[in-house]
């Protein structure tokens, strides 16, 4: 019983951080969810640890977040006709940019990390 109470508190803590972020977004022109994330991060930095129940709840929330995207992704289908011929250019642009950014990040990171870690190659 106490366990569930703690889990409920953790859920409320996440909602509370988001509400604070939402309130702050009136004054600071940043996304509300980013501000909420930063509020939660500053709380964690000040208590210097992650409470067990918060850890459980957040791991669960992050794992099943895909469920929360469904309405928005379904909503995207409504714009497929608006996109029309642009869809193919868009897909091509996404593919090209993703390959390039992936390649450059991986290549640079490997150069830096191998030097600093002196790690055995082919881990």
């Amino acid at each position, binding site marked *: 019983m106490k366990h569930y109470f703690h889990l409920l508190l953790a859920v409320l803590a996440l909602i509370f951080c988001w509400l604070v972020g939402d309130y702050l977004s009136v004054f600071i022109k940043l996304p509300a969810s980013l501000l909420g*994330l930063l509020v939660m991060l500053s709380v964690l930095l000040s208590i210097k640890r992650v409470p067990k129940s918060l850890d459980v709840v957040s791991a669960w929330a992050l794992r099943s977040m895909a469920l929360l995207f469904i309405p928005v992704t379904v909503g995207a289908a409504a714009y497929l006709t608006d996109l029309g011929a642009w869809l193919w250019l868009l897909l091509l642009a996404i593919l090209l940019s993703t390959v390039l950014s992936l390649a450059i990040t991986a290549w640079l990171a490997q150069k830096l990390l191998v030097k600093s870690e002196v*790690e055995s190659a082919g881990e």
Partner: protein
Amino acid sequence: MSDGLTALPWLSEILWLSLTLIAYVIALKINRFFGGRVYLHAILLSSVLVLAMLMIFAHDIGSYAQQVGLLTWLLGPATCALAIPVFRNLRLIYQAGFKVIGVILLGGLLGPAITWLILYLFTSPHWLQLSVLTKSITTPLAIDTTRLIGGNPSVAAGIVIVTGLMGVLVSRPLFKLLNIHNSSAKGLSLGTSSHAIGTAHAISLGEKAAAFATVGLCINGIATAAMLPLILSVLSSAIGT
């Protein structure tokens, strides 16, 4: 059906929430059955299932989105949960040093910049150009940021998911081609350019890859969500006045 239930709005809300949940569970089962293949990603499958149900019941997407508004609302609190992996990996971020953070920021800048440039050169609609700028960051931050800068959040979410799937699909041949054998580097690039979908894939590459992917996802997500509204408001005020 949509007409029959208009008298009981909460009933159709519960109905569509349950149908969405069922679609999600089925999608997860199918994905697991096929060994977690990327192109059978749960988000993709469940969205297709929901779309099929909407078509069968002749229910329009707009009222569906309204009825399952609870799910979209919950994205806000769920995003705050990202603070926990950020906190956990602070030491790793600190140890990795400024150069690695620089690599993440460069990768996070290149992805959207190249996409935007291509769309700009082909003079695509303005709203579309504004909706690709968050392509490399995690969906909840992308939705919020795109709404703030005046793009289309739904289209942005679709673009984010396509980016994630493409990144994972091309990563294996690309790493082989470039001779990337360091698993931290693999994880870092996957998290930076393919956000949560890339990070989920990096988990299968080992613990180190997973940790660096989380670092890439978090730093790029925070940096893009923080910088994009600022840059665009400066640009628009510079052009506007």
